Each structure stands twice: as structure tokens, then as C-alpha cells.
């Protein structure tokens, strides 16, 4: 352990320029420490994945095994898919709730895309007075907490909307009661409205950065706004539309607050998040099927996420970095 070589092979990091001056053992320890960051990174990765891993393992163990030992002591013999059978069964009703989740997430993904694409194009390429102010006002709503709109929205879905004319005591119905209380329709309508500021912001960032010459050339050729939007902007914007679609799908599929407010106790229309939360609510009794349920709920977003991560990241970046 006396002073030996000061340069160590295999570290991949060149030693400090003045390495010869101090004793070897400290340098050697220092070189060892230089490799710690990689170790720390992978330690974080392990810590980050342990909770999910535990859930995944436990979802394949029966009730008694889950209660007896921790998931890290799993034995191959006790693996079973009974939990999945139970949770898809009629009493737990996971299958139906998955359909409800899809019934919310699909329209809540498709419809905002179209509407927001129009608006993003309008804000980016149609000149009109007050455009900038209106755009900033729209996008400022990004930060508005949904809670602020929930109570009146629920009232609207339950009983429509009406105003009483001043002076006359006469009520005018603005929005009739479409009998939407407690339906998946009310949930996706709400999602559509709430998604709008973010969607416009994201798509506008992209559409406004398309080269200006393109539009001028099309204009000279006599194309109108509708043609330019339909033939030029829409095909060029497919990447960002995909990014938003993934974003919105994950958000609506995973949403709990809006679903719980709009659908709440109506069991036949509940999406999976409410089902899982309810299972977690009644302590003890159903705890053993909870891992399976949570895993099924997370499965679809995880597949979407890993398959289309590139677009998701792109959406995330376009939505926040470019600001």
C-alpha cells in the first residue's frame, strides 16, 4: 500500500494534472470515488423501480402469501393468476371499468386535437386585431386549477344552465339538461374543455414555427386558409398531433379528480381509477386483488408510454421548454 503508480488503468478517467504530488493511496481512493456517480445513478434507478416491481410480483401471489411474507421472498411455487381472474370477475368488474375508461379517454383525445389544431392555426397564421392578447389570455389558462370550474360544471351537467333576466323574473335556458349527470360523456366533455389551453399552446408552438415561405408560396398559388390548413399544415403537424394525443390519452386515462366529480358513485359508468381507489378504500378486505387491479390499470398507459416515448418526450419539451 505504499506509493505505487498514480495512474490507474480501467477507470477511464484521466487523473488530475498535478497527480504526482500527493501520495498514491489518496489518489487511488479519489479515483475510486470518481466512479461513484455511475453507482449512484444506478442505485437511484433501482430505488425508483422497487415500488413498481413489488406491486408486479405481489399481483401474482395469492392472498395468504401476500400477507405472510414480503414480495422479495417470493417462491416460484406460489405464483398464480387467480388475482387477475378475481378482478376481472363480475363482482369486481374491472372489465367494465376498463371500457368506461376507454369511453372517456378516446373521445377526450380525438376531439380536442381537431378543435385545438384549428385554433392553433388561427392564432399562428391568420392576422386579426388583438390576436396576441387573445392568445396569451388563452394560454394563461394553462395554470388555472381545474378545481375552480368543477362545482358549476357539475351543476350544469345535472340541471343544464339558465340565467334569470334582470328586472323580469324570467328564466332563459342557455343550455338544456341533456341528462348527462354521472355519464362518461360528461367526463370527456369536461376533459375536452380543460385540455384546450394546453393543446392550443403545444400545437401553436409547432405550427407557428413552420417556415413562412411555405405559406406565402401557397397564397400566391391562390390557396385559401382552409386549403392551406387542410393540405399543408395538418400533414406537416402529424408529429406534434401525435405528441399531444399521447399526452392527452395518458392524462385522461389516469384522471381521477374529474371522473370522481362527474361520475362519482354511478357504478356502471366508473372508470378504472375510481374502481381502484374504491378498492383501496375498504381497508383489508380486498387488499390482495389491489396489486393486480393497479397493474392492469397501469398496463395500457405503460404500453403507450414505452411504445411512443419519443413523441411523449417531444410533447413534454415543446410544451414547457419553448415556453
Amino acid at each position, binding site marked *: 500500500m505504499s506509493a505505487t503508480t498514480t495512474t490507474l488503468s480501467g477507470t477511464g478517467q484521466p487523473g488530475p494534472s498535478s497527480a504526482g504530488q500527493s501520495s498514491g493511496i489518496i489518489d487511488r481512493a479519489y479515483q475510486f470515488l470518481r466512479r461513484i456517480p455511475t453507482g449512484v445513478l444506478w442505485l437511484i434507478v433501482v430505488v425508483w423501480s422497487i415500488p413498481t416491481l413489488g406491486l408486479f410480483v405481489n399481483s401474482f401471489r395469492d392472498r395468504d402469501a401476500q400477507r405472510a411474507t414480503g414480495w422479495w421472498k417470493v417462491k416460484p411455487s406460489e405464483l398464480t393468476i387467480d388475482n387477475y381472474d378475481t378482478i376481472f370477475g363480475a363482482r369486481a368488474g374491472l372489465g367494465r371499468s376498463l371500457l368506461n375508461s376507454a369511453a372517456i379517454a378516446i373521445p377526450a383525445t380525438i376531439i380536442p386535437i381537431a378543435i385545438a389544431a384549428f385554433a392553433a392555426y388561427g392564432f399562428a397564421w391568420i392576422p386579426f386585431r388583438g390576436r396576441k392578447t387573445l392568445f396569451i389570455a388563452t394560454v394563461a389558462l394553462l395554470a388555472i*386549477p381545474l378545481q375552480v370550474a368543477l362545482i358549476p360544471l357539475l351543476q350544469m351537467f345535472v340541471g343544464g344552465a339558465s340565467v334569470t333576466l334582470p328586472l323580469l323574473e324570467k328564466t332563459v335556458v342557455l343550455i338544456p339538461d341533456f341528462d348527462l349527470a354521472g355519464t362518461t360523456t360528461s367526463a370527456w366533455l369536461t376533459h375536452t374543455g380543460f385540455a384546450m389551453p394546453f393543446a392550443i399552446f403545444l400545437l401553436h408552438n409547432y405550427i407557428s414555427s413552420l417556415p413562412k415561405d411555405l405559406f406565402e408560396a401557397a397564397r400566391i398559388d391562390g390557396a385559401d386558409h382552409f386549403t392551406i390548413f387542410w393540405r399543408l399544415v395538418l400533414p406537416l403537424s402529424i408529429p406534434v398531433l401525435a405528441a399531444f394525443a399521447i399526452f392527452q390519452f395518458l392524462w385522461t386515462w389516469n384522471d381521477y*379528480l374529474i371522473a370522481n366529480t362527474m361520475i362519482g358513485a354511478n357504478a356502471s359508468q366508473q372508470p378504472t381509477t375510481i374502481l381502484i381507489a374504491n378498492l383501496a378504500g375498504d381497508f383489508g378486505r380486498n387488499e390482495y386483488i389491489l396489486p393486480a387491479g393497479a397493474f392492469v390499470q397501469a398496463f395500457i398507459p405503460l404500453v403507450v408510454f414505452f411504445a411512443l416515448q419519443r413523441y411523449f418526450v417531444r410533447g413534454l419539451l415543446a410544451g414547457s421548454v419553448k415556453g
Partner: protein
Amino acid sequence: METLERTGADEGAPGQPAASAGKGATPQTARPTKLYVKIAGGFVLALAMIYWAFVEEKIRSTLLTVIIAVAASGGIWIGANLLFNQVRSRWQMFNTIAFAVVGAVLGIVLHGNLVTIGSGSGFLTWVVGPLAGAASFGALGYVLARTDDPQQRRAIALGSSIVIGLVIGAVIRDTYQPGLDPVAIVVYTLVGIVIGAGLSLLLKHPPLGGALIGAALGWVLGAWGAADLGAGSIATSIIAALVPAVLIGLRLGMTKNPDYKARVAIDNRSRAVIFIGPALAFISVMLVIPAIRTAYLSLLNKDSTEFVGADNYKAVFDDKNSLDLANWTNMFTSVPFILGVILLVVALIVGISMKKRTGRAVEIGNPTVAPLVVGLLFVSFGAFTAMRGTLINNLWWVVVVTFVSTAMGLAIAVLADQRGGERVAKSVIFMPMAISLVGASVIWRFVYTARDTSTEQTGVLNALWIGLGRLSTGSGLPTIIATIFLVLVLVGLFMVMARMLVRYGPGRAVVPGIMIVLVGWLFIRFTGIVGGGVGGFQTLPDGTTVGQTVFFVQETPYNNFWLMIVMIWIQTGFSMVILSAAIKAVPTELIEAAKIDGATTSQVFWRVTLPQIATTIGVVVTTLIVGVMKVFDIVKVMTNGQFGSQVLANQMFQEAFSFQNKGKGAALAILIFLAVLPVMIYNIRRMQRES
């Protein structure tokens, strides 16, 4: 399609900034097979989806609703576009069709609501009314567009509007003939005139036109909306219909056919409405108007029948559960607070010495920053555990989750940058973003599980904690190994500190010094020099030690922190991805230049990289603050606000929808809104600066 492929191909790792169209193309010839496989896979997937959709009634009906809704509104939208395509070059055609559409809509409204004579059940009535409207209005539009003589136009507009008003008044069913209320008519007409003229002036038009339209609308509202329908005669209904028709006719006669320049302006303005209108309609109905109404509801009592002023807000702040500062002195005795104060003292000493050496006490990247920031965090932690209540909890959430998520995300982004396995590591840490907050809460519930100590622990954290206790209080080989390990770590840290002291002076030795204090404290506790050891154990009166679990979710106030961990677990991935992209976007020339000037890796990071990504950090922090302020799912699922872990969003939900106290729920929602208002204003400022 080509853009999709191109941008798809040139993005290897996650975390590269979004590519805009028009980038140089990369060769695509390399993998056509892969493309075909992808297309085929997508096709199969689509077929499976369609099959599934057909089998499942729920999906089928939803898809049908969506398709019908999209087709109908899309048809209207495209129709509007095609109509306004005529504005520039074919004004006469445009005018005819536009008038006909207005007429048809009027016909549908009147005939469809069974207001007019001849309407009733049956298919034909749906055709007759709209057709009549379209034909008469279309003819008017055609004639108007043909002539440019102002006098002729005035005569045509006035004459035909009189005819139309007379006809509409005459065909109203007697059950709908209004009994006129002169006061209402006068009031509403006057209000209409004022609003119309005001709007015109605001848009810098002559006020007469707006006043006429406003008067017409006011008259309609006063004569029809206010009236007792069915109490009138044919005369009253003619009066009620004729006057607004004449007013609109006068307005129409005032204008002349627009020249090309004016038509271009009309084209642009109408396109703006067509393109932006639908989105604004959704935002208004779903977001803006409800938000305004919530502000109004928050001033009313629980079932919105009585005006109570600020009572709801007062109730929130007076409630001991919202804000309890009675025990604030406890924070001086809490461990985090004392640790934080020690760190702040260290920061002060270092700061003074840095001031002497470099002239600046605090500077990004100098040794004062680390103890200062961590010390402040610890002090706030101590303060938040001593003061209790919903508002304090929210503040605590915001401070801890925002800070830790950003710092962790930045640390991971730096650690992973250009290292082997970067993609895998980042994917794993990013993954929780895809899991719902409910799912994450369930996942962490199993991590936090505490079971009776007589049985085995099934939660990871309690198992580790009790294991540590056993290790610390035991006397077998594992205990000895662990002790030796701790000693080695301590020695290693001492060596690092010594090297830092020799090489770079006391400034760089601060961080290892703090780590020595922490690890040394752990060592002293672990070996039982002070206290009986660390970990989950309990010494019984007879001298034996048994395990003791931590009830992570139930023990106030630290359960708040354990709930925050769930949020941190999710949000770290978000800040990591964004900060990683920002780091990669820092120009390499800058970093190369700094290195050539002899900067070390850490100097490059603190002095070059960090200032470059400062704005991005700002974006991440603001996004996190907004997200954390409205945290709901985690608290709802894990504790439902029990055990002193209530937050505003969950309390709002409970008050508004469980206890049916609309007033207080609305007040809480407004409080959340007010809390994020500074962030909104900051964002608006930023956008104004950028554009």
C-alpha cells in the same frame, strides 16, 4: 408523412428537443423493412380495435357518438369555410348564400320550436320553414349584392325587411303571441342601444350601426323574452317582429358592397372566428364561465340561497384544521430545524470567508450555496412540522416536492448525461409519469405497509427499518461487518476532505465535511455510543428488544412527507427529461472554451451549464408549483385527509361534493386559484417578453 418519418428517425434518445419541420433530411433507405413491419403491425392493431369496438356495446355507442358529433360539427365547419372561400372573388354568391343560411336558421328556430302556423309533426314541416326562410333571405342577399347605389340599397333593405317582419309577425301561432310590456321593451331596447353603440365605439366604428343592432336585439328580448306569451293578438306579434326587422333593415341599407380590400379583411376576420371560435367556445363554457361562477358561489351560503360575503373564507382561516399556529414554538426543538440552523451557521462562516477571498458571499456554484439551500429547506421543514393545518400542509408540499423533484431531476440528468445506459436509466425514472396518481398511491401503500411486529413485515420500508434495528442492536457477524463498513466510509470521507483541503482550500471541503458529520452521527447512533442504536426497535422493561414499525401513513406530521415522496417519485422524471434536454442543448463551444481555460468539470457545470439552463429550471419549478398546489389523488387515496394530512384540493372536494357545502368548497377552490395566480402572472409576463 415524410416529416413524421424524418423526425422519428433522428431522435435516438429521449430528451432531445423537438425538431421542427424543415430540418435536413437523414437517409431513410436503411430500414424499409422495419417500416413495413410497423405499418403492418399498426394495421393489425387497428383491425383488432375495430373488431373489439364492434363487440363491446359501450365502445360502439361511444364511438358512434363521437363519429356523429365529429361529422356534424366538421360538416358545419367545412361548410363555413367553403362559404367564406367565396368572399374574395365571388361576393354576390357569398352574399346570397350567407343570407340564405341566416334565413334557414331562422326558419329552423321558429318552425322547429313550433312557434309558427303550419309547423307540427311530420317531415315536411322541417323542410318548409327553413326553405321559406332560405329563399326569401337569399333573394334579398342576391338583390343587395347586385346594386351599388346607396339609395337603392336602402330602399331594398328597408322594403324587404318590412315585408319579412310583417310575414313573421303574422304567422306566429296565437299561443305564442306576446302580451307586450312597454317598460321592459323600453328598458331592454335602451340597454341594447347603449351596449351596441359602446361596442362599436370600442372597435372604432361609427356608433350608429351598433346602436341599431343593439336596439333590435334589445327589442326582441324585451318584446318576446319578457312578455307573457299567448296573451297578445296578431297586432302585438306584428309589432314585436316588425320593429327589429326594420332596425336590421336600416342597418343593412347603411353599408355598401365591400371593395376587394374590405373583402380580404372580411375573409381574414371571418376565418379567425371560424378557426378560433370553437376552441374559445369550449374554453368559455368549460373553464372561464364556471370559474367566474365559482367566485360568485364562494360568496353565497352552503346551498347558494343567501349572500354571506366573505364568511366562507373567514370560516376557512378560522378553522383550527386549516391553520393552527398554536405550537409554533415547537419548531425550535425539532431535529430538522436544529440541523438546518447548524447548516445555516456553516453557510454563514463559509460565506464570510468567501467574501474575503472572492468578494462575493453567495454565488451560483460557490461552497456557500449547498449548506444555505439545504439549511433553509431543513428550517422550513422544522417550521412546517410545528405549525399544522391544511394551508401549512399545502405550503409544505409545494416547498418540498418542488425543490426535491427539481434537484433530483437535475442531479439525475447530470449523472446520466453521456454515460452508458443513459436511455435505460432515464426510461426507468421517467416511467412513473405514465402511471396514474391513484396507481402510484396504491404502489406506495404497499411500500409503506406496517404490520404487527409479531409477524413478518411485508412493506419494504418497514422491513428495512426493523432490519436496521436488528442489525444495530444485535451482536453477530452482520453487525460487525456493518460497523466496519461505516468506519471505512468515514475514513474515505476524511481522505476526500483532506485532499480537498490540500488541493483546493477549505471551500471545497465543506460538502465532505457535512457528510462526515452526518455519517459520523449515524455511526455514533448505530454503535450505541449515544442511545441504544438506530432503526425500528423497542426495548422492553425486561431488557429484551423487539421490532417496532413506523406507521408511515398515519403518524402526524411526518406522514405528509411520506405522501410527498409519492409525488416526488412521479415528478422527478418530468423535471429530469426537461432539464436533460436543456443540458444537451447547451452549445458545446461554450463548454469546450471553458475547459480550454482550465475549468474543472464541476466548475463547468456550475459556471457554464447552470446559468444556461436557468430559464428552463424556472419553467420546471413553476410547472411543479402549479401541479403540487392542486394535488388531490394521492391524499384522497392514501389518507383521505385524515391524520393531519389534509390539503386544499381534497378538502375542496369533500366540502363541495361530500358535505354539499357549495359555498365553502367554492371558497377553497378560489384559494387554490389565488395561490397559483402569481405563477400565472409570471407566465404571462414571460410570454409577453418572448413574443
